[in-house]
């Protein structure tokens, strides 16, 4: 295997992206469709000034706060729903309702109640991801082998040992698999909410570029978000999925 082989698909994608920009430039003209070199130059300027990392960091931070809130509410409710049928029966319609609600509803509602700011993306991410966290936590608990629970009671297995060797390894794969899905969508929901309801963050920067018709800036922010998405996938989401599969096979 040549050293280039692992990065070859990325290079091909980059070339295709450059070709698409060039084609758009020829079709729309340079004012509306800047070429790849101009976009890369703008991206470099944003990175050099620190603005790129500050704004992307803010978007990711808000997404993480939203996911944290969703985990606190949806995770606890999901665990209880998995354990107690009554909680599941009574909370499932509400969670299904949340799941069918498009994020734009949350953005509009929070903007009316709190104005623009960090709360809009945080609350939007929390509301959009809570149903996933809930259902994965509930499925994790419901997937625990009932016979092993009975066996543990019969042999009076100490609670901590039961938690570490049976319950957590049984639930965590579901939870981590769900978390990886949640994380991969959370930062995108955060950026959309910033676009509509915040004055800072990468989503808001895209809005400013759009409103001023700064097409080089718009393309640079778009490219930065693609890179962010790929980086999160490689550094966080894929390892989480691997960990979930590992726990499923080997335990904690």
């Amino acid at each position, binding site marked *: 295997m040549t050293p280039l082989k692992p990065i070859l698909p990325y290079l091909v994608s980059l070339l295709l992206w450059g070709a698409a920009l060039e084609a758009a430039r020829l079709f729309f003209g340079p004012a509306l469709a800047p070429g790849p070199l101009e976009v890369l130059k703008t991206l470099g300027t944003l990175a050099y000034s620190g603005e790129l990392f500050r704004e992307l960091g803010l978007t990711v931070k808000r997404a993480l706060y939203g996911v944290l809130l969703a985990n606190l509410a949806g995770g606890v409710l999901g665990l209880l729903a998995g354990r107690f049928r009554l909680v599941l029966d009574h909370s499932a319609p509400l969670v299904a309702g949340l799941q069918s609600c498009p994020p734009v509803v949350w953005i509009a509602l929070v903007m009316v109640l709190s104005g623009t700011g960090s709360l809009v993306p945080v609350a939007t991410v929390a509301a959009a991801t809570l149903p996933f966290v809930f259902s994965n936590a509930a499925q994790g608990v419901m997937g625990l082998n009932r016979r092993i629970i*009975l066996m543990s009671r019969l042999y009076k*297995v100490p609670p901590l040992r039961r938690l570490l060797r049976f319950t957590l390894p049984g639930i965590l794969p579901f939870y981590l698999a769900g978390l990886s899905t949640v994380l991969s969508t959370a930062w995108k929901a955060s950026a959309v909410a910033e676009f509509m309801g915040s004055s800072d963050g990468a989503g808001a920067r895209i809005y400013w570029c759009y409103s001023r018709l700064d097409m080089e800036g718009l393309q640079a922010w778009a490219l930065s978000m693609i890179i962010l998405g790929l980086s999160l996938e490689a550094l966080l989401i894929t390892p989480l999925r691997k960990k979930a599969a590992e726990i499923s096979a080997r335990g904690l």
Partner: protein
Amino acid sequence: MELIGAAGVKKSFGERQVLADCSISVKAGEVVLLLGPSGYGKSTFLEILAGIGQPDSGSVRVQGEASFLFQDDALIPWLTAAGNLSYVLPRGWSRKTRADGISRWLSLFSLDEDDKPPLMSGGMRRRLSLARTFILERPVLILDEPFAFLDRHWHSQVASLLNGEAEKGRCAILAGHSVNPELLEECGKRLRVLPLKESPLSIPADLGREADASAGDAERPRSLRKEGEDDGGSG
């Protein structure tokens, strides 16, 4: 001394009655085989005796604690064979006692300590499950189809272990579909066979009690054997 006593146990699941009226008494040193076809409620009755199922009515008394062999093994798939045994050991056991116990029972059942249940054959999983049942050395053994998935060599080994436990003053009650020749041979007079012919399951008090003079006569259960029942497929 009676180690297991049950009287008038009844159980239904919804409209379906599974246990009509079951009474039994098992004394120290006895091995009792509940003999009947699938779906007769043997497992339900054993679960109630073990305390992991609740009867609708009737009473159950178990002297000391019971070990239970689950029909479906109930092994933790991500733990190794050693891990599955270690999981049930009491906190009070020293590290050495635990290690010795695990090593002894794995060795007795020819199991590798690092093997995990999903990679084991049905017979290996059953042996691991049996090892977990025996390792605690509880006075009462309740075994749901202990011979399922095992070949004749292991039938003899398990029957011999059961006889050894009974000799130590413990007792065992098992469920199976046929009389196992190895069990007859190993346990001899200690073995009492209760042929179950009714569904919902009914064990009258006089059948469930140990008969006096002829109790455990090995010739009696032998007569229950039919052609082809000793071919290693009994459960």
